[in-house]
């Protein structure tokens, strides 16, 4: 069991636990977002004197009532103008907007576009569950094409909104994508977003089992989380765009912290290189300079092979005695030897 940090132990003081259980359905993903937010607030030492939570209408909007922070529960879709004005009047406050995808991108879509344009220094945590949950499950702006909902009985005919594209249209905004399964990543993303000086947006895929999941074939919230575990992968370092089912944090293009590429393409000419006829330093291929530092590229096929191998090892490990498993994990004994001792043919490893 990994050691708990102090923040993980202390996050409860940010929550009104006396109001629990929450109104959210069992299996809902919003609670995970709330707890990760509370842990980040604890880590960063934010409290009710320096942080204001602005929430919208919908299931997600109720988060404000469970957080021990001053909060404004705005009209449907109007979180961003309220948040921007609070930040304008009181620049010393951290203003965190928590809203659903319908609130942020549909009824509040115009405000989203223009708050991004004005680069308001607020953080948006968007609970993206791809559905209007509170009203029973209607098509939302992020509902995938073809999904059947109460308001699209033969499948959603439209393409979901491109939140990444919207946010990244600004040269100053930070965009992060995470899921409620990848909790450590989510926590980092929230922290990074709150620390970001400018507009930041965390797009959090989460499950709505009751009003979406069951209708599209999931039996339980656990299945949906398993689905996130299996389908969502971390984006490659230096990615400029997150593909579908990739999680990551995208900084503006010219930001030094951008995905570990701080010392990237802007490579200077190697010292001592001869100048060309016009006196200019010779051009260097952008890829050549950082090549020495970069890890060797791994092809998708190779990744798939490694993933299959590790899964096979995992399956074989299940057949071992727990005490032996620990020894294998510690490296005291190789898996092949352990299998041999247990009477399993180690050749299965190769097949």
């Amino acid at each position, binding site marked *: 069991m990994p050691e708990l940090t102090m923040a993980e132990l202390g996050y409860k003081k940010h929550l009104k636990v006396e109001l629990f259980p929450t109104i959210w359905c069992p299996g809902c993903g919003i609670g995970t977002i709330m707890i990760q937010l509370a842990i980040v607030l604890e880590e960063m030492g934010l409290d009710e004197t320096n*942080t204001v939570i602005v929430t919208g209408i919908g299931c997600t909007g109720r988060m404000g*009532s469970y957080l021990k922070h001053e909060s404004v529960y705005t*009209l449907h879709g109007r979180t961003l*103008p*309220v948040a921007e004005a609070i930040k*304008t009047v009181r620049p010393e406050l951290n203003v965190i907007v928590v809203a659903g995808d319908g609130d942020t991108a549909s009824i509040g879509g*115009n405000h989203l576009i223009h708050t991004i344009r004005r680069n308001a220094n607020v953080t948006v945590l968007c609970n993206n569950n791809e559905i209007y949950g509170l009203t029973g499950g209607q098509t939302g702006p992020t509902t995938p094409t073809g999904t059947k909902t109460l308001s699209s009985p033969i499948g959603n005919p439209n393409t979901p909104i491109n939140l990444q594209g919207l946010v990244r249209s600004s040269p100053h905004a930070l965009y992060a994508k995470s899921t409620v399964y990848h909790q450590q990543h989510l926590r980092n993303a929230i922290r990074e977003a709150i620390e970001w000086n400018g507009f930041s947006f965390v797009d959090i895929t989460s499950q709505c089992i009751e009003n979406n999941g069951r209708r599209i074939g999931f039996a339980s919230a656990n299945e949906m989380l398993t689905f996130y575990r299996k389908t969502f992968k971390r984006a490659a370092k230096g990615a400029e765009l997150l593909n579908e089912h990739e999680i990551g944090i995208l900084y503006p293009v010219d930001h030094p912290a951008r995905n570990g590429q701080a010392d990237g393409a802007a490579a200077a000419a190697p010292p001592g290189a001869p100048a060309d006829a016009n006196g200019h330093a010779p051009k260097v291929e952008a890829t050549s300079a950082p090549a020495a530092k970069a890890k060797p590229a791994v092809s998708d096929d190779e990744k798939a092979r490694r993933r299959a191998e590790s899964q096979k090892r995992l399956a074989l490990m299940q057949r071992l005695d727990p005490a032996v498993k620990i020894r294998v994990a510690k490296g005291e004994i190789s898996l092949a030897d352990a299998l041999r001792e247990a009477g399993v043919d180690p050749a299965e490893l190769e097949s």
Partner: protein
Amino acid sequence: MRKLVQGNEAVFHGAVAAGASYYAGYPISPSTEILNIASGYAAAHHREFRFLQAEDEIASANAVIGASLAGAKAFTATSGPGFSLMQEAIGYAQKVGVPSVFVDVQRVGPATGMPTMPGQGDIMQVRFGSSGDYTPIAFYPNGTEEAFRVTVQAFNAAEESRSPVVILSDTFVGHLNEIIDLDELAAEITVVPRDFAPLARHVAGQPRFFAGVLMYESGANAGEPATADADEYRRQFYEAKQRHLDVAGRYALYEHGWNRHAEVLIVCYGIVSRVAAPLAADYALFRPIRIHPVLGDELREITARYREIVVVEANDGQYADLVQLAIGREVKRVPLLGGRISIEAVRDGVERVLAGGPGEAPFPPAATERRRPSPLEVGG
């Protein structure tokens, strides 16, 4: 220093004198001058005054709410169509108790209407525009100096009642240029300060939760939704209503042009009262300045002295309905609608209704002939 000041400009300077430090708005004639002046003022005084040109009136109204909760005295200005977009936010500010000021420089509606001829068609929108029940306070000045004073009073009333207060105006009042002394005016006002802690300054007790849904405000379950508790709703509703009525009572502003020969009282406000001023020789005039809630006691007492009450206004008789309801007595109405407002139209209308005729002006017979001929007609 005495100088020529426009009605809209006077509203802005009144707001600053009252302590306003935040303006959010969206350009719309005939209120745009306020936005322009606010942006210039913010550029020159960026430490004490903030300005936002929002993407629409919905955003400006909500930004005003956010700024006010954060501790600034905030206001916005718009015209009829934008005021319609702000209604939801005004309802929110009523529910949550957000001191704020909304200026509506009216033009002829509905919708884009006759941009930007003067009208008074938003009287009922101020009263009933948002969903649910609430008791709004609204003022309607008819000149530049009064626009300044009334704006200060609107900000004070907003603080005292903790509610959004509306300043009504119209194209003529907004664009009226009069010579006034802003410094002298600013010296004689009193300003009501904010009396509740802004966001994140309320460290002593439990953190607050400003919500448009019904919430328990105190007690063991403070902060919990009370969305099914009708008794709690009644308690909060009547508390707010009483607070608004109490504050409105302190601003029972009106003008009564008494005339001892007159048996007829003309009730009018805003630009119509300026146009109708020459009629003071023949009629008594009454001009409500605090237009909502309707001046019930004052109207009952004053109208009792007259044989006939005629309400003249640049709409289809919106305020006449409210006056009739308040005094419990039939009033005659001269609906001028909007657009061209002239002393002749007012005088003819009043004489017509007093003679038992309709308040509406007859269509001029030449109206169809003034139609712009089509190119086909010209060619043929």
